[in-house]
């Protein structure tokens, strides 16, 4: 990460949140966070391409798109939030793989897998939605939500125990 970019983003976020808190800025805090993330993501992607760090490129692309999702989610009335999460995860991951292909065009595998995920995200909005994917998603999501804390804690503990391996 570019330290100066992180610093400037944090200061803008902090100042913006203070203005929202004081009532000067009539904005949703999540939209502001989305804007800052999107701006930081795109600037850091450019910086990472110049530095040549792949993990930074991927992380910046993910942050940029997460920012866009936050802006969209809070700007429009979206009834099915779970559906949005599913589509976003698929699209963001696909975009991250595509950006890896842009970084190294010899690696066609990232192009194919990125496209596969983006096509799946489009299908999940159209064809798969008609089949009843979102209803199924709701049932599985409800079940997943109950066990999510336990799953996360177990995953966390397992990484912590194996941190020196």
């Amino acid at each position, binding site marked *: 990460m570019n*330290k100066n970019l992180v*610093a400037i983003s944090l200061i803008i976020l*902090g100042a913006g949140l203070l203005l929202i808190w004081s009532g000067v800025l009539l904005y949703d805090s999540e939209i502001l966070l989305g804007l800052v993330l999107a701006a930081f993501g795109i600037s850091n992607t450019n910086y990472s391409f110049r530095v040549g760090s792949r993990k930074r490129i991927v992380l910046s692309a993910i942050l940029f798109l997460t920012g866009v999702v936050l802006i969209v989610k809070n700007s429009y009335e979206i009834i099915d939030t779970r559906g949005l999460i599913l589509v976003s995860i698929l699209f963001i991951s696909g975009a991250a793989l595509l950006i890896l292909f842009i970084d*190294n065009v010899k690696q066609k595998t990232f192009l194919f*897998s990125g496209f596969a995920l983006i096509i799946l995200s489009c299908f999940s909005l159209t064809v798969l939605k008609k089949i009843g994917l979102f209803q199924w998603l709701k049932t599985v999501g409800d079940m997943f939500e109950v066990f999510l804390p336990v799953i996360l804690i177990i995953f*966390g503990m397992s990484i912590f125990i194996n941190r020196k391996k």
Partner: protein
Amino acid sequence: MDEQNLHNQLFGEEQPQADPVYRVRKLQRSGDNVVIAGVCAGIAEYSGKETAAIRVIAMLLLLLGAWIVAAYLIIAFLLPIGKYDESLTEVETKAIGKENFRTVVSGLFIIVGLHFALVKFGFSGSSGVFILPNTFMFPLLAIAGGVFLLTNKLAKTKIGPEETTEFYRSRSDKFLLGVCGGIAKYLGIDSSSLRIIFLLLTGLTLGMFAVAYLVIAFTSQQEPQLLPLQDE
């Protein structure tokens, strides 16, 4: 000096005793074991405890409210940075970086899991730092963090080794087909954390994420095997 020692030993004369050296443990930020500002590692070095444990405890304290962030920043401002250990080799630096990354990821998983569990049972963290609400404190902390970064108060960090140029499915670091191991090596990140994130995303997308795994597996090559050199 050696001749003097020999003479003293032969004639039984006592050697003058050197003054004992007392090492004073100084509380300072770590210079070479850094995630944000090296505060947790500094406390661990001072107290003789393990750094990873201090880091996870500090992260868990976040559940009690944003005051821990304020405390962290104040300590980071007040404590001096320790000397950077130049004797650390690239392998040792990489091992420290890997352990730090895993500690932070594990701490994040545990804290998010505990947060969801506590919310489910009706508990919530403190809504403020002292008398100030979190909605006011968080922006201040963000600005303080930004100023802290801009004033270059961070400890030194070594740049990691170069990344590989070719992507291969891993032969040595594999669970199923070596895709996660290969991606981790290609990006220079930790493979076990990537595997867990991959598993979570597969669960969240009802298994659709596995399609990408299969596409990568079938369109990429496996890491070439290193054969032992043969004499002609």
